[in-house]
């Protein structure tokens, strides 16, 4: 039972998705515009936001950015299928995952649950790598004593990599591990998330010391 904010301008689609997600056991509130969505987001602090990118007024990208600025509440965007501009723009704006229109409620529900699982606790170990300190139980990270705010997805990606330093993970592996996607996952999700993570934990994101790129294959956490 999660509190979900659905921002969608078409009333029939909005109502249909609300009905379907409610059937899947979620508590769904709705907004019909970006402005109203942001207002409701501040008022109700939902567990997750489902956001249509095509909105009148403030568009979905801007709404996503503001939600991301406000904290680590996960965002799933709804895009037109194969519309790369939407996908890339949404991911850059900080979205955790995306589904394509017309969204299958079962797929959307699976994504929602996967994202929310990342926010849940983990086996409580403490990982320390040089200046980086990762508390898996509390899901908190600090860099040289300073706390770093990560979204659940960024946290889960960091944990996955940091638990096996030196092991190379392909994008596909990470998609299945972190995003719980099937075999056709979109590797751009991984690349975008790595960039956001580096921006937060690396001193110089261009020459990363923790999350390294293995050219042509994937990523790994640097061995000490």
């Amino acid at each position: 039972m999660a509190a979900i904010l659905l921002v969608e301008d078409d009333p029939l689609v909005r109502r249909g998705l609300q009905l379907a997600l409610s059937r899947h056991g979620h508590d769904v509130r709705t907004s019909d515009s970006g402005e109203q969505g942001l207002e409701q987001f501040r008022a109700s602090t939902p567990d997750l936001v489902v956001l249509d990118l095509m909105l009148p007024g403030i568009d979905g990208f801007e709404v996503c950015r503001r939600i991301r600025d406000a904290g680590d509440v996960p965002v799933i965007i709804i895009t037109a299928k194969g519309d790369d501009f939407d996908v890339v723009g949404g991911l850059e704006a900080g979205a955790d995952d995306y589904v394509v229109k017309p969204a299958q409620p079962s797929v959307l529900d699976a994504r929602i649950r996967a994202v929310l699982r990342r926010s849940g606790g983990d086996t409580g170990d403490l990982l320390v790598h040089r200046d980086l300190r990762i508390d898996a139980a509390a899901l908190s990270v600090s860099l040289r004593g300073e706390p770093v705010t990560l979204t659940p997805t960024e946290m889960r990606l960091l944990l996955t990599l940091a638990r096996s330093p030196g092991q190379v993970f392909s994008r596909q592996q990470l998609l299945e591990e972190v995003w719980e996607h099937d075999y056709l996952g979109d590797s751009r999700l991984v690349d975008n998330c790595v960039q956001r993570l580096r921006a937060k934990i690396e001193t110089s994101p261009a020459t990363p010391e923790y999350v390294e790129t293995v050219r042509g294959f994937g990523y790994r956490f640097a061995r000490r």
Partner: protein
Amino acid sequence: MTGRRWLRGLRARLLVAFLTVTVLGAAAAAWASARSASTALVDGEQRRISETIVGQVRTVTPQLAYPPDRPALDRLRTVVGEDTVVGYRGLRSADGAETRLVTPALRSAVRARGRTVTQRITAADGRPWLLVGMPIVRTAPNGARTPSGIELYAVRSLGGVEVQIDDLSRSAARTVALTLPLAALLALVAARSVLRPVRELRDTARRLADGDLDARTSPGGADEVAQLTVTINEMADAIQTSMTEMQRMQADAERFVADVSHELRTPLSTLTAVTSVLAIAADGADPDAREAVELAIAETDRLVRLVEDLIEVSRFDAGTAVRREEPVDVVAAVRDCLGARGWADQVDLVAPDAPVVRLDRRRLDVIVANLVGNALRHGGPPVRVEVTATPQELQIAVTDGGPGLPADVAERVFDRFYKADAARARTPGSGLGLSIARENARLHRGELTAGNAAGGGARFVLRLPRDQGSEAAPCTPPTSSPAPEDR
């Protein structure tokens, strides 16, 4: 063979015609002039010889005893020179070996006409001779002439004249020969001036054929070629106009499909959302209602797939489809594709190689899914997927155990909404699957072909070049911040 083809060329034909006319003309002129010159030469020589002999005879006759005796005949013969024979009734005075050449025809002509007669002959050895024969007549004081009975025949060589004539002929032949290179040069120049506009026209026509509809030739002059040029330019204008019109209409149609498809998404989103609610709700309903709900869900799914395929097709039409490359373990990708659709135990996957190829994983999945889905629906078991690779090329062949494709179907199987027979009209595909698969193959600069396997089943072969070239989109995310691939 090549020589004959060369002769069929316009340039060669012009050249040959020009040379023939020139040489024939020059030869005829040379021949005519050489002939008249040689006739004049022979006539002049002939006259000179006969007049000389007549003159010599006339210097002697007044002092010649008449009727002549043998010494008188000898004297006359001596004055005329060698190779001469003089006769009077039974008397005969001859000198020189060539006198035997004198012909009976000449003798009878001399007797019949009573005048000086000449005749040209060619001896057995080919040398030309002039025979001169004459009677010597008696003239009365009043001018009346009567034969004297004395006849004189002389044989003179025409070898000198022949040498002169041969020189003349040779120089005429040389002149004709000299006109040959000159004529060839002129013919080449003429052919060039005729062929240059023709060649320009050909280039223009080729550019038009290659799709450059702006290609024109500026017509020069007012000859037939210029008229042809004007006509071809007009034709190009007409083609360009109708092509522009067709392109506009096609663009309109494509935009219409794209717009309709996008507009359909919104109601489909609602439908997709609510049918899942209906499915849950119908669990407790009566069988008819449940069947109705199942039908609605199935048709909604079909509608969704159709719209997705239409959007994909319109993206290919508009040229906005891009491929996102990454290194893909092709065999694993095919296995995943089959597994995700529950086809793993219906399909034999044969993969002697394990190529890792840079390509768009999603588009490869679309191609394989469409080919295998098609084989399972329309062909028959066993369905076989073979993945083979060379350093240059990746090949995926999908073969089924069905009856195979008739030739006319194999040609059209990639057409949009093509249905080989009425029985297939209600199959679950959108009718765009194979068309989209082929477009995806082409997006990878590859090719997808349909044919039949040796065993009789239909066989679809996908060939993709392994070097996808530089136009490929990068696999790293296209963002403004530095790419993660930095070490």
